[in-house]
């Protein structure tokens, strides 16, 4: 089966006045459909930048990103927007809900932006489905400030999943959550991957979160330093990953 997402020798340079920072220095990887992949590395390693390039939020300086066989490295703004709206889903560390909108409206946002009617038919069912998936029934009318941090992040996950994206990209989704709530969120992501075949790319610096992945790419100084194949494991034990990381000096 061809990869759903590929990166070919990606570089990304940020110009900061007279100086520049090279966040990525030639990264290549491939993600298979239905795979749970983690990008792991310390702060400033370039993992979030890589995720942004993979999700069409930004464009590489050189190299290419191939999404479902299509090079998305140099899409126009409108095409990149359409890609994000229809084929990818994002979950951020900071939840990023719209405070003015309630839970249902936040989840329905991608459809609303596309001008679709979410009050009836399939879209209504899909919204109800993801609300059930993230266990927020009865809280559809709550505003973000009336939810706990874990609930807010579950809304963000539901919003990312509601369009049934080809790839779900999550950037440190447990970064603002406590241990237990973070675990519940990772369970929800893993469940969507394992039972629904959702492809997930997770950025994290936490070995416990990365241990949910089938494969872990270790990034450091803008380069992939290691690729750890953990395989699909329902117990998500972090021990093998930690041992391997110790071997590579992380």
């Amino acid at each position: 089966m061809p990869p759903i997402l590929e990166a070919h020798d990606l570089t990304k340079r940020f110009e900061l006045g007279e100086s520049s920072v090279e966040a990525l220095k030639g990264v290549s990887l491939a993600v298979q459909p239905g795979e749970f992949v983690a990008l792991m590395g310390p702060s400033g390693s370039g993992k979030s930048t890589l995720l942004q390039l993979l999700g069409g939020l930004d464009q590489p300086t050189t190299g290419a990103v191939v999404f479902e066989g299509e090079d998305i490295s140099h899409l126009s703004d409108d095409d990149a927007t359409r890609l994000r709206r229809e084929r990818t889903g994002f979950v951020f560390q900071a939840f990023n809900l719209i405070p003015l909108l309630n839970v249902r409206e936040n989840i329905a946002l991608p459809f609303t932006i596309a001008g679709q009617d979410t009050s009836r038919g399939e879209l209504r069912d899909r919204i109800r489905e993801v609300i059930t998936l993230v266990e927020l029934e009865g809280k559809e009318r709550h505003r973000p400030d009336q939810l706990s941090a874990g609930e807010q992040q579950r809304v963000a996950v539901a919003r990312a999943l509601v369009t049934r994206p080809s790839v779900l990209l999550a950037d440190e989704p447990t970064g603002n959550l406590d241990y237990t709530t973070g675990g519940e969120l990772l369970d929800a992501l893993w469940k969507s991957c394992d039972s629904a075949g959702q492809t997930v790319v997770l950025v994290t610096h936490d070995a416990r979160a990365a241990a949910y992945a089938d494969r872990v790419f270790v990034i450091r100084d803008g380069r992939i330093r290691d690729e750890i194949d953990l395989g699909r494991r329902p117990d998500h034990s972090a021990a093998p990953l930690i041992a391997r990381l110790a071997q590579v000096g992380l």
Partner: protein
Amino acid sequence: MGLDRLAWRILAARPLRTLLTTLGVALGVGVLSSSLAMSAGIEAAVDRTVRDVVGSADLRVAAFLEGGLSEATVEAIRMTDGIEVAAPSIERRTFLGAPVTSAGAEAREAVTVVGIEPVAWSRLHELELVAGARLARIDEPSALITESLAEADGYILGSELRIQGHDQPTTLRVIGIIAGPGPVAGAAGRAVIVPVDVARSAFGLEGVTRVDIGLADGVSARDVAERLAERLTLEPYVLSSPADLAEGLRASTADFQATTALVAAIVLFVGSFLIVNTLSMTVGERAREVGLLRAAGATRAQVVRFVLAGALVIGIAGSAFGLVLGLLLGSLMAGSVRALTGFPAEVSSLNAGSLAVAFLVGVAITIAGAVEPAIQAARISPVEALRARLDLPATRRARLGWLALVFVAVAILALLAWPPAAGATGADRALGVYAVLLAATLATPFVLPPLARILGSPLAAFVRLEERLARGSLARDRSRTALTLGALVVGLAMIVALGWTAQAARNAATAWLADVVPGDEVVTSIRPIGPGEAIRGQLAAIEGVRSVTPIATFDLAIRGLRFDAAAIVGADFLADGRLTFIDGERAAALRALDVGGAAILPLPAAERLGLGVGDTISLALGAGTTLDLRVVGVVERSIPGDGGEAILVGWRDASGPIGVPGADVFAVRFEDGAGPAAREALETAARDAALEANPLSRVQGAVTDALGRVFGLFDALALVAVLVAALGIVNTLAMGVVERVHEIGVLRAIGMTRRQASRMVVVEATILGLVGAVLGAVVGLGVGAVLLFLSGGLVASAGLPWASIAIAAVLGLAGPAIAAWYPSRLASRVSIVRALKFE
């Protein structure tokens, strides 16, 4: 780095916001300084005019009756103790050149002829000659003319000059040219100065128009006035001092100055919204920095100073720029005053006092606007500030409360800078208007959400998400939105209110003339046309003319008060159906005028005198004689006089005991269906007789044009308020984008296009504009009602000012839409990656 320098850096970090706020202050100060400069210009013009009119005279006795002051009165003045110089003079308007009755004579512009006693007059009036010699005797056939007249009509020294008088023209020789436009007020530079006896003979007069008085050293004007009151018992007169004349001249521009000052205060008020909002935004945005400063040991006082330092920079820069704008606006205003009153107001030089006041007021209001944000900043707890943004409900309450205080501050400053000539009544009216505007602004946060929902709902049909997010954004910081919207509402309200006032004034003026003038055409003369002259018959003989009725306006003295009066032919008014009677029987009253011994009072005069039908008025006619007239009717509106509506009397009384020499106006009514040929023939005949014929519609048009010019200026000033409001909208929308940059980044990340992001801001501005237009119209009608009520013009027939409401609606929508241009671009250009990093 000192805190003051940090304040400067914070201003520099948001250059657009700083620039727009500075511009807002500049516009406010510009309007204020121009208003003050114009007031100073008017003051200077008043002084100049008074100097021209009375020279160095200490008192002036002016004739009240048409016959002038008799020789006995002049002699009595001369003989009064304490009077050193008494200079009698005659003033008449007439034409130069060929006799006016000769066919084919070309009518030229009128001139003002002043007859003087050369010796006495020159002791009180300075005359600067550019050529020739002065008058020497009271009977020499010589004349001095102004340089302006000489240039315009081609006269030189030695030219022969013919003055059209009551009979044959008087021929004089030009012996001197007076510099420039000369010293005769109201002559527009076309003045001829002749010996008094020559003038007396030319115009067939026995008396003189006035006597200027120079007092002996150490004698008080009050003592002399008392002595004159004892001695001058032969005929009514008006005694005035230069101060009285100045006061009268100031009064003629009082309404104009009051309205200008009011609009200036409102622009400043709107500007203060902008300042409060901008600095509040800055404080809110910099809450973290302020918290850090506090955590690092900065005292509350230091934080207050830090915010005020920023305000001071804006205040100084804005006020300085405002002074430059003020000069430009001042010239515009002075032009309007000249066009309106013919008063030679000039704003040609810098007036240090006006500049200083405007500058200080600008800085003071900026600082006043900054006090509330400064206090809020000082209250920021280091812990709270480092945790979240400063957005507390208490802030809103404090801000609205502060707004009331800023209102009071602006009101006090406006009253301090209030033009003295504008008077207390104008200040009352301004405060009334001001209070309505403040109440409306304070109510804005409460009516905003429901109105935004109602007015935004049509937009939701097309751009549902954008409308929802835009509405939410407006509700995010309701006090900020309220201030922004408040400024827009105030600006638009002023346009509606001034439009309504102007419309009511135009309607009233048009209806007034139509109600009282029994003609389609008004033929005016600068000299009285006596009953014996053939002109009336000549005009009446023109084919298509149905009636020609003579009217004369003059003054009457009743119970020591001056009233405007007019002589009319009652039968003509009866036949033509003019005048609306409130009291008295119409036909009987008008017939009684022609019989004599009767008068018809306009309502204001009836109320002032407390008289009604059946009462008697007693006119002082001089030499101790009186004329009793029975009040036979009270009319809603009467013939307009110099200072009000005229008491109507019949010609028998006017030309008899009252001594009116002749008509100065003929009202001409055409036959039904008379074509343009009749009008043309009438105008030709009038021109040949040195008369000026104008259709009533043109007279009405001239009145409404004059009103239009004045209100046009006020509208322009109100537009400045809308402009300041638009700057506030740019600031608020841009701030909304900056605050929501993370949210916009998220929306973009999950599929919102750049166009949608941009549209969201435009929709926000549109909702703001819609709400502003609706509130502006409502509040404008409220303010207009207050203005009309206070001026007695609020009547059902005034009608609503639909045109002004439409203009306000267009401005309300267009202003925010234009203001949204930059913020919407800002929103569309949000970088997703950077926005997501931004917490």
